[in-house]
């Protein structure tokens, strides 16, 4: 695992998550260095990134620890961030 590419909230989640390498329990945003080539697209899909919008550098996915390890090692993956939860900015 290239921990240098994981953001701090994802590091915390990894440290506290159950030890099931295959469970897709990490909702993440993956930032790529460039829109993926066909080969990189295949790697992303093999690692569990189900949908990759064409020509985009940011993709979302639910990954397992094993997928994270695989993708973080790729030089064309710039960063992986845990999907934080946002909230609406209105009140009654």
């Amino acid at each position, binding site marked *: *695992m*290239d*921990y*240098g*590419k*994981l*953001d*701090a*909230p994802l*590091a*915390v989640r*990894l*440290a*506290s998550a159950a030890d099931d390498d295959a469970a897709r329990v990490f*909702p*993440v*945003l*993956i*930032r790529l260095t460039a829109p993926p080539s066909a080969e990189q697209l295949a790697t992303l899909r093999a690692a569990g990134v*189900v*949908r990759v*919008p064409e020509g*985009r*550098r*940011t993709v*979302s*996915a*639910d990954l397992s620890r094993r997928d994270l390890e695989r993708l973080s090692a790729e030089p064309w993956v*710039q*960063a992986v*961030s*845990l*999907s*934080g*939860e*946002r*909230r*609406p*900015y*209105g*009140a*009654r």
Partner: protein
Amino acid sequence: MEYRKLAPSLAAAYQRYHQDDVSSLRRQSASLGWVSVDEPAKPTRAVVSLICTPDATLDDVKHEGLRINQGGNRIRTAIVPFDGLETLAEHDGVERIVSAHLLRPYLDAARAGVGVDTFQNTTGLTGKDVLVGIVDTGIDPHHPAFTGRIERIWDQTLHGHGVPEGAFGLELKGSQLTQSRDTEGHGSHVSGISAGAEPVFRGVAPDARIVAVKTNFLDSGITAGIQYVFRLGREMGLPTVVNLSLGGHYDPHDGSDALSLSVDEETGPGRLVCCAAGNEGTDDIHARVPVHGTAVKSLPCIPDVKGRRHDFMLNGWYATDSRFEVAVAAPSGHSTDFQGPIPTTENSAMTYDLPDGKVEIATPETNTLNDDRNFFIMVRPEEHSLAPGLLPTWQLLVRGVGAADRGTVDVWILDKSGHARFNGPMTSDDMKIGSPGCASSAITVAAYATRTTWEDIDHDTFSAPWLRLDDIADFSSEGPLRDGARKPDVTAPGAMIVSALSQDSAPERELTLDTEHVAMQGTSMACPFLAGVCALLLERDGDLDPARVKELLKAHSARPHAEAGEFDEKWGFGLLDVAGL
């Protein structure tokens, strides 16, 4: 009688009319547009608006005293004797009948306050052939404000195969739209401000097409939702504006997080994103900790100002030319070890079990998206750590690794309920605009009060003493960003705003004006106001890009008694004057 076609207030009045309850009718007649209640020689009549089927012909509707005014197509006005309501309601061309009181333009103050009426009267722009995307809690497809204009709903909370941008949720169109429900009501209200169209309430861009994403509110869902809306816009050949009345503080507050970068990636000519600045203007959620060598600085953290037990998080950022260590001290005095930046070869997160609860601290070497240093701390207090009568106060401890390590740490406290706060002199009333509002290309909006009183469904008058009429709302979050970038961009009406009420939501009664409208406040309301304005601008020029729109807005915005172009961390470049755009 087809009661389903009558607005509830009209249906109730119709019943009272038949019960000969003249006193009730008289009490409401002035505000509801009923006439001749006390004149036996003339039939009691109602001034109403009719929502008709497209190109309906009502020439064949005949009843003594009934007068349908000329003009209009789907929306027409009429004076109808109560005895003639049944004839009108049973006509195939009439979809709904609402009392004239609903014709009060609730957004008058907001629209007039920033010159939208003047602008639209001059230009005729209504958002036609522009797509407005609302990524929010959903939309009420039954609401008359949106009739016939919702292209799609992607409900990320329903089980399904998703869309090309995300393999989750269910995409709905046509008759399927009603499968999605806006139980929170926030998204419907936001949609109404931006693109509502009805006699009751006129949104800023009432002819715009609408796509709603009922999001799961995770960064990944929001990102996919933005990408989805813009793809639909491309496929439909329409310029598109996406409204994001949401946010949070998990990010570095400089626009370098993945969600903000995704916003920057999606925007361009004919593709705009508007974001709410946030509602934490009066909340102590940000602190600046000056660090001088190895001296320990202590920042008090209160998980909940009401003393309830809540997990909370601390998100700290500082420049890469220093190395700082952090620790957490519990209310009992026990504390974790100090933890500094950890090499990338191992996980930067460590867990500490204290008598008061569990603390997890991550201190990566650097962040690869902005090259700054970051620490993230999760605190999970135990139930027994609460001392009766005392607010449990935790402490964030910060110090330099060595004597030469100096600098400032910006840190935000966050929790799911929004009740966690800092305490003490290091709290700072700036830099409260988080992602996606800090995205460079996003048009980020602060909130202004154009209405502070309203009349509820029971005709009781309420006021909002926390607001000052015709002034910035205190709750509106301040900029600038952590890197000094100027945010918010502009200010727009955001309190109190009356807009569409989702029938699947349950608002407080005093904020409910009738069965179709509710009052809300927030930068969530200012944001769609601006998104509506952007839709008008895109109708005029479908190639406008974020930079050009910001130039236009900046040139036509100002704080009271200030020149256009002057930046303020609360107002941005000031209150928008739409009339001059």
